């Protein structure tokens, strides 16, 4: 019995996301629940970095799961591993909220410069030592690295990054494109 119990636990934590998405596409709610159990807490964390408010982040994740459920049949491995697809949905949904300006409705202003820079840098510092992404990010000039991270981690637009870093919009756009190319070359 003990063996069975631990086996069941293992199965729950090591579900195959690709299979779970296929099951969702077939209408299996338990599969969605399994994805939720495994990814939800991290998803809220990702969304919180963008929308900055816990309750908004839960709204983001709620809508993300509705989208996962409805679009599971569209998952295409060419567009990345299943986990990356899930997180792309979360970040897109969070960015939608951010762009719509809803975050600021009746809400205390987030101390923008402070909060954003910290999130972006903290994310880079938490990458595993020796990982290619970390090493290659460190190879970028610091403001270029920050620009790129502010986009991906904090969900900022070109204009917001330019405003926060006190740089012309065109400069930020060009920097990020070149940084992406440099990063990709470095990672091989």
């Amino acid at each position, binding site marked *: 019995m003990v063996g069975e119990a631990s086996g069941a636990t293992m199965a729950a934590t090591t579900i195959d996301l690709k299979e779970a998405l296929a099951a969702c596409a077939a209408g299996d709610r338990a599969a969605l629940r399994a994805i939720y159990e495994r990814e939800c807490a991290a998803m809220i964390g990702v969304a919180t970095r963008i929308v900055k408010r816990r309750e908004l982040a839960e709204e983001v994740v709620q809508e993300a799961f509705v989208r996962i459920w409805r679009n599971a049949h569209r998952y295409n491995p060419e567009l990345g591993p299943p986990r990356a697809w899930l997180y792309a949905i979360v970040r897109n949904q969070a960015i939608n909220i951010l762009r719509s300006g809803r975050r600021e409705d009746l809400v205390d202003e987030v101390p923008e410069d402070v909060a954003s820079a910290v999130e972006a840098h903290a994310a880079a510092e938490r990458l595993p030592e020796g990982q290619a992404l970390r090493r290659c990010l460190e190879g970028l000039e610091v403001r270029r690295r920050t620009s790129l991270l502010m986009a*991906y981690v904090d969900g900022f637009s070109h204009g917001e990054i330019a405003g926060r870093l006190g740089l012309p919009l065109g400069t930020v756009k060009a920097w990020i494109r070149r940084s992406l190319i440099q*990063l*990709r070359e470095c990672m091989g």
Partner: protein
Amino acid sequence: MTDDLLADAGEYVAGLMSPEEAEAFERRLAADAEARRAVGDWRARLLALDETATQITPSEGLWPRIEAAIGTVPANAPAAPGLFARIWNDVATLRWASLAAAAAAAVLAVLLVAQPFSGGAKPVVVAVLTAPDTREAGAIVEAFADGRVRVVPLRAIPVPEGRTLQVWTLWDRQVGPRSVGLMPAARQQDYATSGMPRPADQQLYEITLEPAGGSPTGRPTGPILYVGRGSRPL
């Protein structure tokens, strides 16, 4: 793979494209296997950044809300928490809400004639609150110089068990939103407020759904049901 495609795919994955650019890029993805590979490659590599996020335990209500949302998937369902995530997507809501005052003026005129405020006092600010998604007028706020605020719902607003409507106003972002009062059920209610400045043109009013007893934080935490800006009546 060209540098341009690399950079385009990276911008797409990082969320840097405008909605129009993203849509155009997605059309390309449908037709271009190399572009799909470029996106898949960026997503796979940048996933490590998502993995650095702090894990935050979901509140107990989150899964039930998801289940409710996928269970019904309604096009025109009554207000329920599961629907509000979509409201958040509406870019033009607030801008629209202020314009909506004009559209709802007829309703307002009828209402004011039908229900003149006792004592004949004239509100200094009137706001028509509309639903962020459907843009239907849901309530009217009349704010008086002496701090009284009258809220008149224009339609039935479902309030789930254990929840309440709460009316808020914001006149200064430095100060933040302030509670006008609770509305446990959708019916006309007068509130006496104090410590607020005289209501001003463009002052924001909104009704949110909060836990019974009102928002525990003193700030709006629940979904926005109706929102609008005040105008000075002629």
